[in-house]
């Protein structure tokens, strides 16, 4: 080969020459020094692992803000009578002050950015270990019950509570057959969270019982954005079972549960076949477990068709959240879910004023139908 041919590739040999520092050290001394180094390395790793864990764990217990676990500490201290569980949509949709005034109960919004059922199940278990809330409002969404979803991975931020909760332990270990091995490292519980903990350490929680409203209005470009793609996804029975398990755990502890789905701009139950199947499955779980399911459709709350109520297609702004919370409060009140006795609790017919919520209309009625092509 001519040297001129080396135009698009590297100059010179790519094979690593034997490095001078890599003289074979096969003798007894070489092996002995290697094992000594390995032993020292292991000892250092174990000691440092414990040390880092103790420091981070201590700091974490004092953190009360942030989506990396701080709000769980805050929620546990609040001991509210009504607890909202969910994702960023719950966090921004349930106005705790308004709910508190309307229901006459203390309310805490424990929604967390990017989370789904696994996180909610873990938080519910932690709360139930501390006390028994009267009511859990579980904000459900079709994306929680489809596979693949990222929610089990994201729930690893509950690893700080691994020693406290059997439920969390089982859930995190269920990620893989060798997951337990990773958690032999104590500091691994704070994987990806060391910086947020240091950032949030000592920062007071100024939220109104967890609620984090957002201001601003959706622009036209956002309004025209496509809904989250659901093509290629399928219903995951494990997620539905997790929801059922959550309901059973709450009821076994003496709490009541209501499922609510908060609105997405331009999306309805029948926006596409997968969404419809998701909602039907969620309804089936609610029916089977005997808990009410408040489905907010755009027909029964027509003002939520207004883009001015949204920050983006997935999140209501402060004004939208106030309207939505008022609607939820009224439904809960109608159902008697907040009566101390629970006497008026709940046949589903009580709250299903809108026929569409119970019986989806024919496909194609929604201009933003997102059904994948056949």
């Amino acid at each position, binding site marked *: 080969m*001519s040297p001129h041919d080396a*135009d*698009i590739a*590297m100059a010179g040999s790519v094979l690593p020459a034997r490095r001078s520092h890599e003289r074979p050290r096969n003798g007894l001394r070489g092996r002995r020094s290697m094992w000594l180094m390995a032993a020292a390395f292991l000892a250092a790793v174990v000691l440092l692992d414990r040390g*880092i864990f103790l420091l981070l764990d201590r700091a974490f217990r004092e953190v009360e803000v942030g989506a990396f676990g701080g709000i769980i500490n805050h929620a546990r201290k609040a001991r509210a009578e009504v607890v909202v569980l969910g994702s960023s949509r719950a966090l921004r949709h349930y106005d705790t002050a308004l709910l508190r005034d309307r229901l006459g109960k203390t309310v805490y919004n424990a929604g967390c950015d990017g989370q789904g059922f696994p996180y909610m199940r873990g938080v519910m278990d932690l709360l139930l270990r501390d006390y028994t809330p009267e009511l859990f409002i579980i904000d459900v969404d079709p994306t929680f019950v489809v596979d693949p979803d990222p929610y089990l991975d994201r729930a690893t931020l509950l690893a700080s509570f691994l020693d406290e909760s059997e439920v969390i332990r089982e859930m995190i270990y269920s990620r893989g057959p060798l997951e337990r091995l990773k958690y032999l490292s104590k500091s*691994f519980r704070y994987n990806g969270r060391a*910086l947020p903990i240091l950032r949030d350490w000592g920062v007071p929680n100024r939220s109104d019982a967890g609620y984090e409203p957002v201001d601003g209005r959706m622009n036209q470009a*956002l309004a025209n954005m496509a809904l989250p793609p659901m093509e290629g996804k399928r219903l995951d029975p494990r997620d539905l079972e997790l929801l059922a398990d959550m309901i059973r755990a709450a009821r076994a502890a003496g709490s009541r549960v209501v499922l609510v789905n908060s609105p997405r701009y331009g999306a309805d139950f029948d926006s596409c076949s997968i969404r419809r199947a998701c909602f039907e499955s969620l309804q089936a779980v609610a029916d089977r477990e005997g808990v009410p399911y408040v489905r907010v459709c755009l027909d029964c709350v027509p003002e939520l068709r207004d883009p001015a109520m949204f920050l983006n297609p997935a999140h209501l702004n402060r004004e939208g959240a106030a309207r939505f919370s008022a609607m939820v409060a009224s439904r809960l009140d109608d159902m008697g879910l907040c009566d101390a006795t629970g006497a008026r609790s709940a046949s589903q017919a009580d709250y299903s004023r809108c026929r569409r919520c119970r019986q989806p209309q024919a496909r194609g009625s929604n201009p933003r139908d997102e059904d994948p092509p056949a």
Partner: protein
Amino acid sequence: MLFNSMHFAVFFVAVTAAFFAIPVKLRPLLLLGASYYFYMSWEPGYAVLIIFTTLVCYACARGLERATAQTVRKVLLAVGVSCGLGVLFVFKYFNFVGQALRDALGLVHVQVDWPLLEVLLPVGISFYTFQGIGYMVDVYRRNIPAERSLQRFALFKVFYPQLVAGPIERAGNLLPQMALDKPWDTGQVWSGLQLMLWGLFKKVVIADRAAIYVDAIYNDVAGHSGPTYLLATYLFAFQIYCDFSGYSDIAIGSARVLGVDLMQNFRRPYFATTIPDFWRRWHISLSTWLRDYLYIPLGGNRQGVSRMYLSLMITMFLGGIWHGANWTFLIWGLLQGVMLCASKATLPARDALVARLGLPWQVVQAWRMVVTFHLVCLSWVFFRANTAGDAFYILTHLFDGWPRLFFDGMVIWHVLPAILLLLIVQVLQSRGSVANRLRALPAPARLGVYVTAVFSIVLFGVDFGSQFIYFQF
């Protein structure tokens, strides 16, 4: 089984321990079994495919060695290469070609019912196909003898450290090492483990963390500002480099522990001062493969300037398509080809201008480094975008919404210090071996470096066991 998974950690420890515990003559058998287990952990059925291509390569090479008639040898080579490329075409390009054909004929109102295959792309198919073709061509050229031992050849094809994403090894380098008869070498073992640790750091601390930001932008391109697209593209440049070079480091390191030297795959590519220089530093095993088995046979640069440019364009076009059956890779390859040709064509004039202006050489080199990096980033937009439309959207909206920036502090504050560390290490590498420097440190200091690396991974790595980008190729 991903290199960044617990599954691999257990596998590696078990295989390495067994490797050094059993008699030398049993090592190839052990590694062959382990390599098949490694590959079948993705999809057991695809082992059949690799066995088929192994047998075809082996038989053709033996035939090539024995045959004397040139026609017979050509036929044998054609059969072997066609089998490899045929499998690659069916699994990787069949649907893409069908779709493109259907779309093209649709433009002239001709409906063609091209069947679409519903098959999963076998992991690493492009890598082991190219490795096999390279071997057959080398035997055809009588650069190397055909391997007589089927067991040794099979191990060459499926040697687990480099099976799914390279480096694309040359038979002349790897086959002789498949005897696996090297004794335990403490220095090699340490060196291999160090490299694996560094590779893992690059993958989980830099690449996977940067991916969080990059995916958020590139998977939903509409509505972001210019600075956000820029930041996402810069981060992708480091993501793909750390992802792929991290994989290569783990591959080379794990092979080194077993006493096998694999070829270098990256050499500080973002320090390149021209696009040709970039290709001497990026994915070296592929670029040298393309040079030796495609560019030179096409004529190289010995048949005139226009032929050279044509050969370069064809090589880069096929190099682009090698990455995947998608218009984005095709455009990426062509863009790289155009930039290569332009760089070669303008270099003398640029050098003359620099000489006339009398600029300090260091300044010129630094400027060229920055420009080359940005040209590479430009091509990365096509490489990363989900569709060509997305890529054009990003490029046409780079000047929108300044200075608004979507700033994800959690990603940025994790990734920036790690990238800075990467660059420092690379500067040190350019001045001599970092491994040597490390070795010169007193034992406690060395220990401190190792322990710091481990805890950087434990505390700052992303634990979602995400796939390496190049596995899909």
